[in-house]
């Protein structure tokens, strides 16, 4: 039998498909350049160019007037980095080697921070240690000023430790378990194995965690604004320059200053993450039921104590938020009441629904764009895609306010006059959160056996069919994970959108921020609880889907 010759229409189909393929690629590449790279450049331009001339005037005045702010920022960042890194090492090791029942509970508590809006720790700090704080005022009978750098360092350390510990738990999980067994087998104690084998192998992860903490602490403006009192740092100054003084060039210059350590950290991060893959690539076949390291001896006990202190603070924090949402002081005593919740209705008016709506859109679109980037990078290996990937992962580390400021500067005039619209907020969320879906998709896509793709091509599938029939169906878990991450991140975001949201169209986190700033801590607590419950529900539903997806494979 003769094989049918290609029909003319087949060739047309191919041409058409090629065209669509090119179009998608161009749209993806252009959107990354326009919505990530261009706004960043706009911030640079704003800080260096006055009236069309290149100048360093802004930086001169920044350094002459604000040297104190710089040293304040560094003080907080350095201390937070040290404390949070030590805490997260302790927590991650203790959690990794505790028995599986407790491990799950510990990880759940850590995850709670991930799904909480920012400022919950500051909010808890105020309700526990503030002027009318439960501990300082009600229990100890003091009315003192606890606002200042100590509170900032403590609360930032607490907040960042969860994130860091989760990352380090992942790093420890990636280490070949037989290395621990081997060390015990050769006669080393658990304690010695932790010090000599576990921690050295965690080193790249520890450096990454320290870098991220340093950069995030520098960029965090929420904590210092809420509990810093008269103690100011660069990030709060940048924020105030935008919202209070409308001095955008100065805000841009400060943002650049905060951006520099971030970009250095980012490059190191990318290099070190490759190292981490080398370690974790070795052997994952080991059974999980085997005996791991036991917590015995002085050093592991120390880790255990640190972990319990940390967990105690976490529990205290969430209890206080919850309690402050459902209680009210009357004649110096606390009463349970639903008044706060009723009152909150007047504040949120639609902002909660809007938050959910924006989060859904960001979840869907962000997952798709992230997926397409990793598809063109990992499978098609398109030239120059590495650069696009690099740009698209930058928002992971650049300060949120930097990114938000970039959007004001970039999109305030024709042809891209977007300021004041809902679109600019959604775009900002999508591209600010793009690193995660891109990373998740890349991880999943690179697991696909390249021979499967070759087989599909061999059988005559066009690249687009390959995408539709092979790559997309095999990447379901990436979509689910990206969606839920983006949803959570958008529900809890503040930094990057704070300048972009039109006053009448606030999101729940911003309403919460306003409530806290105007001293309505109980309203803030109610909104915090609502956000936590909402993201928790979505996360639980999706983790169920994800588990089923895993079982199916």
């Amino acid at each position, binding site marked *: 039998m003769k094989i049918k010759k290609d029909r003319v229409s087949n060739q047309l189909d191919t041409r058409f498909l090629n065209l669509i393929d090119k179009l998608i690629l161009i749209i993806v590449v252009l959107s990354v350049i326009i919505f990530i790279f261009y706004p960043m450049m706009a911030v640079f331009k704003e800080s260096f160019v006055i009236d069309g001339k290149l100048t360093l005037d802004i930086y001169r005045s920044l350094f002459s007037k604000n040297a104190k702010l710089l040293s304040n920022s560094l003080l907080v960042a350095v201390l937070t980095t040290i404390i949070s890194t030590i805490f997260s090492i302790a927590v991650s090791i203790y959690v990794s080697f505790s028995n599986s029942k407790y491990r799950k509970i510990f990880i759940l508590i850590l995850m709670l921070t991930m799904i909480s809006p920012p400022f919950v720790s500051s909010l808890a700090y105020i309700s526990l240690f503030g002027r009318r704080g439960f501990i300082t005022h009600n229990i100890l009978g003091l009315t003192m000023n606890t606002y200042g750098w100590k509170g900032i360092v403590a609360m930032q350390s607490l907040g960042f430790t969860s994130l860091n510990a989760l990352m380090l738990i992942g790093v420890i999980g990636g280490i070949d378990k037989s290395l621990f067994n081997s060390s015990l087998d050769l006669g*080393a104690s658990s304690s010695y194995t932790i010090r000599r084998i576990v921690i050295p192998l965690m080193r790249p992860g520890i450096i990454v965690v320290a870098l991220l903490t340093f950069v995030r602490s520098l960029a965090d403006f929420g904590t210092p604004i809420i509990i810093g009192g008269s103690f100011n740092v660069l990030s709060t100054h940048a924020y105030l320059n935008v919202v209070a003084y409308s001095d955008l060039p100065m805000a841009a210059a400060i943002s650049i200053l905060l951006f520099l350590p971030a970009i250095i950290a980012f490059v190191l991060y990318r290099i070190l993450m490759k190292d981490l893959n080398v370690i974790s690539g070795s052997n994952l076949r080991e059974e999980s*039921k085997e005996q791991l390291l036991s917590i015995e001896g002085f050093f592991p006990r120390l880790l255990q104590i640190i972990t319990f202190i940390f967990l105690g603070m976490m529990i205290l924090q969430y209890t206080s938020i919850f309690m402050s949402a459902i209680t009210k002081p009357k004649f110096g005593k606390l009463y349970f009441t639903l008044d706060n919740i009723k009152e909150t209705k007047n504040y949120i008016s639609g902002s909660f629904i809007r938050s959910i709506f924006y989060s859904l859109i960001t979840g869907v679109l962000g997952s798709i764009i992230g997926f397409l980037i990793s598809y063109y990078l990992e499978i098609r290996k398109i030239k120059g895609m590495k650069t696009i990937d690099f740009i698209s992962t930058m928002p992971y580390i650049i300060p949120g306010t930097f990114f938000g400021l970039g959007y004001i500067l970039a999109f305030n005039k024709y042809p891209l006059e977007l300021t004041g619209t809902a679109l600019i907020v959604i775009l900002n969320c999508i591209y600010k959160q793009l690193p995660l879906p891109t990373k998740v998709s890349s991880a999943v896509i690179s697991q696909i056996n390249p021979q499967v793709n070759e087989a599909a091509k061999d059988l005559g599938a066009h690249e687009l069919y390959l995408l539709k029939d092979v790559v997309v169906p095999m990447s379901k878990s990436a979509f689910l994970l990206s969606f839920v991450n983006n949803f959570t991140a958008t529900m809890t975001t503040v930094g990057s959108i704070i300048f972009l949201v039109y006053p009448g169209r606030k999101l729940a986190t911003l309403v919460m921020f306003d409530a806290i700033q105007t001293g309505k801590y109980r309203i803030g607590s109610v909104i915090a609880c609502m956000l936590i419950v909402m993201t928790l529900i979505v996360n639980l539903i999706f983790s169920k889907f994800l588990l089923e997806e895993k079982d199916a494979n």
Partner: protein
Amino acid sequence: MLIKVDNLTKKFNDLVAVDNLSFQAKKGEFICLLGPSGCGKTTALRMIGGFLKPDRGQIIIDGENITNVPPEKRPVSTVFQSYALFPHMTVMENVIYGLKFKGYSKKEAIIEGEDYLDIVGLNLEKNKKVTQLSGGQQQRVALARSLIINPKVLLLDEPLSNLDAKLRIRMRDEIKHIQERFNITMIFVTHDQEEALSMADRVLIMNKGKLEQIGTPEEVYNNPRTKFVLDFMGSSNVLQSEDKNIQFIRPEKIMMNRNKGGIEGIIEEKIFLGSIILYKIKTKSQIYKIQKNNDGLDEYSVGDRVYITLKTTGSIAQ
């Protein structure tokens, strides 16, 4: 007896991974735990190494019950399948890692380390990172690292499975030599019957968590006690199989000639395997697998009429 394993049992949920395993080994004996994947051999080894707690049974080494002794205090050492070398340490640091816990000073440890690296032929690489070594070299480092702490029993978990065929055969000899030189008791886990037959003093064959047979390589090959052992150790022709009595003959033990004698048959299939040639011969009663050396003397073709003689048959009475 140096090591005594009694009624060792381990369950994972409903699966009985190791079922009432008992065996003993003398000092200096080389025991191979052989079986298909999932038969429980690695689980058994992990229990002896101390990485898994048995549900039942005990392990006694040199008269001491070590069933509940943690791995770091057991007088045994394991060479892991993945070698489990510490990637952040040099070859020397890896090798002398265990000496610290035996009270060696760093200086003494390095002198000792040099000796052992000499034995495995890696003294020149002592300052390299282990990640720079080839698979075979990593294997030797793992071996030296375990041997140096002078364990009473050395456990090896499919240590050759990550090496290529040539190297695997060379490492077999090396491991065997080291074993003889140190006169150390070794328990070697493998799924490769050739490996087991060529190295072991005694082979212990496991299936579905149970011990099927233990004996010298000759015993388990020539006189298998169960159908499983018969099938697992090479191929065979089953001549007669009544309820509990199986009569068999190994393919290489059948004589074949063109002229007279024995059973008449026709060559149906011929498979060339290099040093040997396999024939399938159809007779009136059944099809026989026959194996001949490729000695260039008498070669047959498909369709040839031949006569076969069954001399040394064996039988299993279950």
